[in-house]
């Protein structure tokens, strides 16, 4: 089994369908507006995995991402009245998550960590989630994984953010554009540019023929 068969290209992983207007979501939003916490829990549980991936794309660490998701959930709970279209809850919620994660990334602690050698996350090896799909890990050499991680993390944030959001495979380009505050065409260009830079740097590092 080749490596290409095990992975999906990022550009094709971006969701292309329009979000469906689920009446259940509308009902849950209405219940949550009346103060029903259980309804709100059901409402966010279906989008929590995507929300955590969004936050992780912004902050880079799982613990910070989960804290950002919690903050965003509380903020969404408080601001449910501001949601004009209950059927658009998912995009609205993910945008709040993204903003909270960006705020956390810009926080003073993150700023200080940039100058603290002991806590620089960029130098640490990536913590891959342990899954049962082990063959691809076997095929991907450890050196190549580390090199890709370093190259991705060295990207400018304007390129890295949409690239990682697209890599999650949860969002349409329109949603990514709404989150990062850029036009759709710009987002598409940034994703392609990020990929081009990553590949170029890997080739310079001698990873043109991964085995």
């Amino acid at each position, binding site marked *: 089994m*080749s*490596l*290409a068969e*095990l*992975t*999906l*290209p*990022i550009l094709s*992983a971006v969701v292309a369908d329009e979000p469906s207007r689920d009446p259940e979501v509308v009902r849950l939003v209405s219940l949550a*507006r009346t*103060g029903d*916490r*259980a309804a*709100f*829990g059901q409402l*966010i*549980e279906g989008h*929590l*995995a995507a929300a*955590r*991936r969004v936050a*992780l*794309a912004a902050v880079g660490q*799982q613990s910070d*991402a*989960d804290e950002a*998701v*919690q903050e965003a*959930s*509380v903020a969404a*709970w*408080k601001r*449910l*009245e501001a949601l004009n279209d209950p059927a658009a809850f998912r995009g609205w919620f993910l945008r709040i998550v993204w903003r909270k994660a960006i705020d956390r990334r810009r926080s003073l602690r993150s700023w200080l960590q940039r100058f603290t050698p002991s806590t620089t996350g960029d130098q640490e090896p*990536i913590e*891959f*989630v342990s*899954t049962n799909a082990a063959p*691809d890990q076997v095929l*991907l050499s450890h050196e*190549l*994984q580390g090199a*890709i*991680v370093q190259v*991705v993390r060295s990207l400018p944030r304007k390129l890295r953010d949409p*690239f*990682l*959001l697209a*890599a*999650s*495979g949860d969002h349409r380009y329109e949603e990514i554009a709404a989150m990062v505050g850029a036009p759709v065409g710009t987002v598409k260009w940034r994703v392609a540019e990020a*990929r081009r830079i*990553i*590949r170029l740097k*890997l*080739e310079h590092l001698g*990873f*043109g*023929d*991964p085995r």
Partner: protein
Amino acid sequence: MNRDVDRLDAAIDHVAKRLVAVPGREADLTQQIIRALPDRSSRHRWLIPQFVALGTILAAVVLWTTRDRSMPATAMSSSAFMPMAPFATTANPQLLWPGTQPSERLEPLDPLEPLERTDGLTSVDFDRALTPITPMNALSLSELSLIAIAPPASIEPAAIEITEMPAMAGAPPRPEE
């Protein structure tokens, strides 16, 4: 070459996807979030400050429009107002400045408080409680006597005798030789 590039793209996709992969603990996190949710505020709670401000303004307007106008104003004292009163009550702009048309808004000013009380005092007013004095209508000269006033004595100044005058004013005296 193309196969290598495809493999590199696939490796990039794979690593990028795993960079944003999260462990499946959504249920626990959901419960944690639900426990941390605060009480929802009322939908119109944000209107409360606006209503308070509006009510304060309305109350002030009602109090101002229904205030007791018979009470004398205390902001200006009668002594400070008195110099304006004769002019304000008697002045005619056409007399003072011929050719000017009187304005409709020019009206004699009413004093804020009575300038002088004409009725009897009903309470003790320490400033005005002196016994009235009968005015003196005419001065009678019959009781005056010319003898009572002694004529002033004549003033005679004493003679001034000058015995010696210096040769020059301000010059020191000459020593005796």
